[in-house]
C-alpha cells in the first residue's frame, strides 16, 4: 500500500501543520455521539484529525476518551447495548454509512489496546500475521515478508527474530505491546488507534513505544489516548481535551496544536486540567 513510499514528504511535517493530502488516513468526525444503553458517554463531538500526525486525546477518567476512540473504528458497538450516531469520515468515506461493513472499517483503522493482548495460543510469527492468515492469505513467502516488515516497523524484529516460533505470551510486557502494534501494522491500516498503550509498561518500555509512535507517524495517522500529559506533549502534534459536561456526557473542550494547547490554552478548563488544578 501507499504507506511505504511517502516517508520524505511527511517526515518534514512540523507539529501543527495540517496536511491536505487525501487518501492517507484523514479523519473527520462530525457530531459523533455514543451511548451505553441509555447512558450517553460522548456528546456531539466534532473534530478533524490530521493525516500522518499524532493526535492525543486527554481528559479526566471517565470522560469518554476510550469510547470516542472505539467509535472511530466501530469497536464501540461490540460492547453490550452500545450504540453510536454521527459521522466518521475516513478519507471522505463515512464508516457509519448504512452500507459500511464494520469488519472492513477495522481493517483500515487498526487498534492497539491498553493491556498488551497477543493471542496466547499463537507464536510470535502467527500473532503478527494472524489478521492476514485468517483473512485467507496463504502465500507463505508473502506472510514471511509481512511478518518481518511489520516487526521491523514495530522496532521488535531485532529482539524476536530468533524466537518467532515461541509463544507471543512469553515476551516481556513492552515487547508484547510492540507485538500488538506489529500485528495491527500487518493489516496495512491507514489509521492506528491506541488506547493508553503504555499504561501497563515501565518507563524504558514506554520510551521505546513513544519512539516508535514518533517513527510511525511518518506513515500512519495515529490517535492516542493517554493519561500522561508529558507523554501527550512528547509524542503528539495535536491534542484534544475532553471533559464531562453537566449531564455526564463527554464533550470536546479544546482541540489544537499540542504546543499551543499546553503553553497557551484557550479554555479555562483546559488550563486547570493541564496545570493539575482540575477538581
Amino acid at each position, binding site marked *: 500500500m501507499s504507506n511505504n513510499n511517502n516517508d520524505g514528504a511527511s517526515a518534514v511535517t512540523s507539529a501543527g501543520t495540517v496536511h491536505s493530502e487525501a487518501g492517507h488516513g484523514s479523519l473527520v468526525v462530525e457530531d459523533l455521539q455514543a451511548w451505553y444503553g441509555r447512558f450517553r458517554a460522548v456528546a456531539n463531538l466534532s473534530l478533524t484529525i490530521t493525516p500522518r500526525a499524532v493526535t492525543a486525546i486527554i481528559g479526566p477518567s471517565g470522560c469518554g476518551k476510550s469510547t470516542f476512540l472505539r467509535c472511530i473504528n466501530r469497536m464501540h458497538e461490540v460492547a453490550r447495548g452500545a450504540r453510536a450516531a454521527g459521522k466518521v469520515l475516513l478519507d471522505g468515506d463515512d464508516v457509519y454509512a448504512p452500507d459500511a461493513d464494520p469488519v*472492513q472499517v*477495522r481493517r483500515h483503522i*487498526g487498534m492497539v*489496546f491498553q493491556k498488551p493482548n497477543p*493471542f496466547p*495460543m499463537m507464536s510470535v510469527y502467527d500473532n503478527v500475521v494472524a*489478521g492476514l492468515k485468517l483473512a485467507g492469505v496463504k502465500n507463505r513467502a508473502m506472510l514471511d515478508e509481512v511478518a518481518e516488515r511489520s516487526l521491523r516497523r514495530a522496532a521488535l524484529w531485532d529482539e524476536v527474530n530468533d524466537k518467532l516460533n515461541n509463544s507471543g505470551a512469553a515476551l516481556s510486557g513492552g515487547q508484547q505491546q510492540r507485538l500488538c502494534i506489529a500485528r495491527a501494522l500487518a493489516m496495512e491500516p491507514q489509521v492506528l488507534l491506541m488506547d493508553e498503550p503504555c499504561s501497563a509498561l515501565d518507563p524504558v518500555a514506554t520510551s521505546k513505544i513513544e519512539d516508535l509512535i514518533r517513527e510511525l507517524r511518518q506513515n500512519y495517522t495515529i490517535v492516542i489516548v493517554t493519561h500522561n500529559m508529558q507523554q501527550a506533549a512528547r509524542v503528539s502534534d495535536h491534542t484534544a481535551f475532553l471533559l464531562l459536561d453537566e449531564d455526564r456526557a463527554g464533550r470536546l473542550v479544546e482541540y489544537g496544536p499540542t504546543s499551543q494547547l499546553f503553553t497557551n490554552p484557550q479554555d479555562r478548563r483546559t488550563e486547570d486540567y493541564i496545570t493539575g488544578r482540575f477538581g
Partner: protein
Amino acid sequence: MSRPAASAPPMRAAFVQPPRPSPFNRNASSGSARSRYLVDGVMRGLIVSAAAAGVFLLLVILLYVVVRGLPALNLDFFTQRPLPYGEVGGGVAPALLGTLEMLTVASLLGVPIGIGTAIYLSEYGRGPFASIVRFVVDLIAGLPSIVVGVFVWALMVRHVVGNYNGLAGSVALAIIMIPIVTRTVEEMLRLVPDTYREAALGLGLPRWKTIMAVVLPTARAGLITGVVLSMARAGGETAPLLLTALGNQFFSADLLAPMAALPVQIYNYAVAPYDDWHTKAWGSALVLILVISLLSLATRLSTRNTLGER
C-alpha cells in the same frame, strides 16, 4: 495486623542497640495473634483433611476394583465373548467394542451440539431465547438418566427402529453428554478475557472467525476437560443403555441391532450367582476405568498444543 510491642521502653542509650523484636514476630505475646494462629491452624487442618478424605476414598475404590478385578484379566477376557449363563471363562470383548462404538457415535452427536450451544450461550446468547436455552440445558442436566433412557426407548426403540439398538444407546448417551459439555465449555469460554476477542475484532476479523481462531483455541484445555468429563460420565451409564442398546452376548458392530456395553456387562455379571462371574464383573469395572482413562489421555494428547516445543 501486628502492632509494635507496646511494652518497648521509650528511651535507650543511643549506642546500645539491643536486638529489637521484629514487629512481625510470630511469637508476639499478644493474645489476638495467638488465637489467629490457632484459627489458622484449625482451618488449615480441616481443609487438608477434607482433601485427604477425598483422595483416600478414591484410592480405596480404585485399589479395591484393581484387587478384585485383576484376577479376571487375561487375554481371553479381552478377546472372547461372554459365555452362556453359568459357564466359566469367556470375556467382555463385545462389550468393550460396543462401549467404544457407542461412545464414539455419542461424542460425534453430542460434542458438536454441546460446544455449539456453549458458543451460542457465551458469545451470542442474550435476551429471552438464550434464557430458554440455558433453562433447557439445566433441565436436561438434572434429568435422571433412566428418564433419558425411557424417552429414547419410546422414540427410537418402539418407533423409529423397532427393536433395541446401539444407535438408540448412542443417542441416549449423547443426550446425557450435551448438558455436561455445554455447561463446562460455556464456563471455559467465559473465562477467555474479552481483550482477546477485541484484539481479533480490531484486526478486522468477523465474529465467527474470532470465535473459531481465537476464543476456542484459547479455551482449548477447558474444551477438552468438558468433552472428557462428558465421555467419562456417559461411558459409565447403565440404566439408559438397558432400555436402548439392551446388551448383546455376541459380537455386533451394527448400530441398528442390540449392542453390548461394559456397564451393562458389569450389571449382568454382577447379578449372576456365580463367583467366576462376580470376578468378571470386577474385571469389567477395571476395564471400564481403564477405557475412560485411556480416552481422556488420548483426547489430551491428540489435541496437545504444539506451541513452543521447537
